């Protein structure tokens, strides 16, 4: 459906927002672009929407080059970050806007508006003022408005960014189910990896205008491509290592690695769940610097450990087994939660 080929965007001639980005979105696929703010993900959407000209590269929609096609003729939908509902129109007026622009008749428009408002769960809100809507309702109206003209591709810029957590978690599930039911091809951007993993069929992680990694959510989660992706996903247990067979020599001592791990100089990632607390005297000796209660079903506690040698370690454990702050702790490593990353750009511990 959508294809980007080496798209580059520079602002003011020097700052580069996108650098040679290539990306494909298949028909009916939900792709989520994930990255910290300033990584160029919103610019990517604006280029596809035709609100920003690319300095180089091509954007193709259903095989057609979009160069020179103005935004209003591209047939793509965009849900803006803060919705951008038209304040002077009521809910129905907002949803009907795109239909009117495409010249559909009054009866057809009314029918479609009603259909969409039912779809997003606001069947009776047609005459309400948008200023009177809650954040979640505004988000639904924005979605209905974007879907109404049946765009070939729907793009969402931080679709759930301003909503509170509970609502966000519920809506992301609803969105995914809805898109799959309607067969919508969707390209979303977000800085929240939880949102991206829950929503997307495929995740694209961006860093400073380039694609750092692309793949299925599980794949990206399990095998981050590099230290940047790992850290962005919240993994901070990184240490340079030398892998020999199924063992790696690190500042933390010898760490077991899964079979088939690439050999030689690597950067080793140990997920917090792979740092196991041991009885006193067994394994790596650490001091507990901080513990953070995360709640959730497992009553998870994150413990920040300062090992006798090597960078700090984060361990996840249950509340019951969590050691107190300032006390000593001994840990070893679960090879199933250990990933070897390429050795380049070893980041400073932090």
């Amino acid at each position, binding site marked *: 459906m959508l294809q980007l080929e080496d798209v580059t965007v520079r602002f003011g001639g020097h700052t580069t927002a996108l650098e040679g980005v290539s990306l494909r979105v298949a028909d009916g696929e939900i792709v989520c672009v994930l990255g910290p703010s300033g990584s160029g993900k919103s610019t990517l959407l604006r280029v596809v929407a035709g609100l920003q*000209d690319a300095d180089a590269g091509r954007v193709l929609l259903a095989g057609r080059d979009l160069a020179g096609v103005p935004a*209003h003729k591209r047939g793509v939908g965009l849900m803006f970050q803060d919705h951008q509902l038209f304040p002077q129109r009521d809910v129905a007026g907002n949803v009907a806007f795109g239909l009117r622009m495409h010249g559909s008749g009054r009866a057809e428009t009314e029918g479609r508006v009603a259909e969409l408002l039912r779809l997003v769960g606001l069947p009776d809100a047609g005459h309400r003022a948008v200023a009177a809507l809650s954040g979640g309702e505004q988000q639904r109206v924005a979605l209905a408005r974007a879907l109404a*003209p049946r765009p070939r591709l729907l793009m969402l810029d931080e679709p759930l960014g301003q909503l509170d957590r509970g609502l966000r978690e519920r809506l992301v599930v609803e969105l995914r189910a809805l898109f799959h039911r309607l067969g919508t091809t969707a390209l979303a951007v977000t800085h929240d990896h939880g949102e991206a993993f829950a929503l997307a069929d495929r995740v694209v992680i961006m860093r400073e205008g380039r694609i750092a990694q692309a793949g299925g959510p599980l794949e990206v989660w399990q095998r981050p491509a590099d230290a940047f992706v790992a850290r962005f996903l919240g993994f901070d247990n990184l240490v340079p290592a030398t892998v020999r067979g199924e063992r790696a020599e690190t500042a933390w001592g010898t760490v077991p690695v899964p079979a088939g791990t690439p050999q030689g100089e690597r950067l080793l990632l140990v997920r917090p769940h792979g740092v196991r607390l041991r009885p006193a005297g067994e394994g790596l000796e650490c001091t507990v610097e901080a513990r953070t209660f995360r709640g959730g079903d497992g009553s998870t506690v994150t413990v920040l450990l300062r090992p006798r040698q090597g960078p700090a370690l984060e361990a996840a454990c249950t509340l019951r087994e969590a050691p107190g702050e300032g006390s000593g702790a001994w840990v070893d490593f679960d090879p199933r939660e250990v990933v070897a990353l390429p050795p380049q750009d070893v980041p400073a511990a932090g």
Partner: protein
Amino acid sequence: MPGRRGTWARLGLMAGPVVFFAVFFGYPVAAIVGRGLHEDGRWQWGRFGEVLGDPDILRVLWFTVWQAAASTALTLAVALPGAWVFARLDFPGKRLLRAVVTVPFVLPTVVAGSAFLALAGRGGVLDEWFGVRLDTSVWAILLAHVFFNYAVVVRTVGGFWAQLDPRQEEAARMLGAGRLAAWRRVTLPALAPSLGAAALIVYLFTFTSFGVIQVLGGPRYATLEVEIYRQTEALLQLPTAAVLTLVQFAAVAVLLAVHARSVRRRESALRLVPAEQTAHRPAGAGQWTVLAGVLTVVALLLVAPLAVLVQRAFQGPDGWSLAWFRALGRESASGTFAVPPVEAIGNSLSYAAAATGIALLIGVSAAAALTLPGSRRGTGRAARAGRLVRGFDALLMLPLGTSAVTVGFGFLIALDEPPLDLRSSWILVPLAQALVGVPFVIRTMVPVLRSVDVRLREAAAVLGASPLRAWREVDLPLVRRAVLVSAGFAFAVSLGEFGATVFIARPDAPTLPVAVARMLGRAGEAHYGQAMALSTILMLVCAGVLLALERVRTPGQGEF
């Protein structure tokens, strides 16, 4: 849309206003200058030195400059509390009060001058009661200028103020700013563009003040405008008038350049909220005091002169009567008019309606051209576009600062022969009035258009709206109120326009202000009484228009 298409759209929108100004402003002014300075087949540049070396002319120049500055400062000081009251307070009769405040602005200057004379001049109300006379000092002129321009500040600043989000100020308070500091650091900077616009308009109006000075200035005080009129009409010194016109032009150009510079530094996209959400009932002694103070000022400065005017209209030769009004329906025995004076009402209304249409067409497309996306910042092509836009902006403001007398006189001598012979055309008067009205439309529209969120337009574009359609669907509804306000301004200015119209209105089709002026120009109680009666009618028409305008304001949310 970025890029070339945007440039073409801008040029297209600019074309109408540019042609309009070239033909109906540039050409007449050039004709005056040509006639004044071009003689015996060559340019007489030496006249500049002769005219500007004259100590009398220098005195006129100095007076013009300082009285305009004093009037502007006084108007801002007196009217800012009023702007706050209109923006933030809600009280019964607010709508009526708003119209009352605006009436003076649209009154013919000569009539307002007379009203002040009747109030504070010899034999005036203040003289009768307290023995106080202001007509011998410059204070009468300054107060009359405040009387006229109070509405400019209240409407441009207050209208914008009403749409500023009060929570901005609250946020500053929460960050530790005192009440005054919050206002000074948050609200005042946000108001700056509209304050600047209002101050500029007031300064230009008072700089080119004509009618007020004619009536209240006596032989002692004269502005450039009065001097230009005197030189052309009384002394038939066309060359001197041409030099003075050029001097006035230069002064106005400098003012506009200064304004353009300051605007560039101040521009910012503000978050506007619906005006009706920001006003509240007065609370606390402080707010009631301000409200009472504003009402007192309005009563003394704006209502009292008008009350005197009405009183004179109804005071017949033998006490209270409608004698002067009845006399308006009859053809004048003394031959002041070829038609009954009452016909001036119909003339004025239809001229003003046509002028408003023209002013809106020209002004709105100009404002749209000025605020198209990409008209600010940037490098290369964008910077060139920015300079183009600023030049265009200044061009549009020129008629505001140029004397109406010049415009009228220019029309008279330039548009009476081929290629453009409009001498006998009905449209001549509306064209001149529209020229005066366009800057109002632009000044009112631009700040509001600029503050429309670009992303709303983008949202419309992504939903399939072409740039033009997006403007119509997104900008226009948001700025409908500004359109109505500017239409009202243009209409009112056209109704009250005097300096230009007096030159070109046909004797058998006078407008209200022209009729009033002719009445005042004749001796005798009957003429004075009829002038007051006509002025009262004009005042009522203006008040009616403004009340209607208040009523059709954007009803707010939920509008489809």
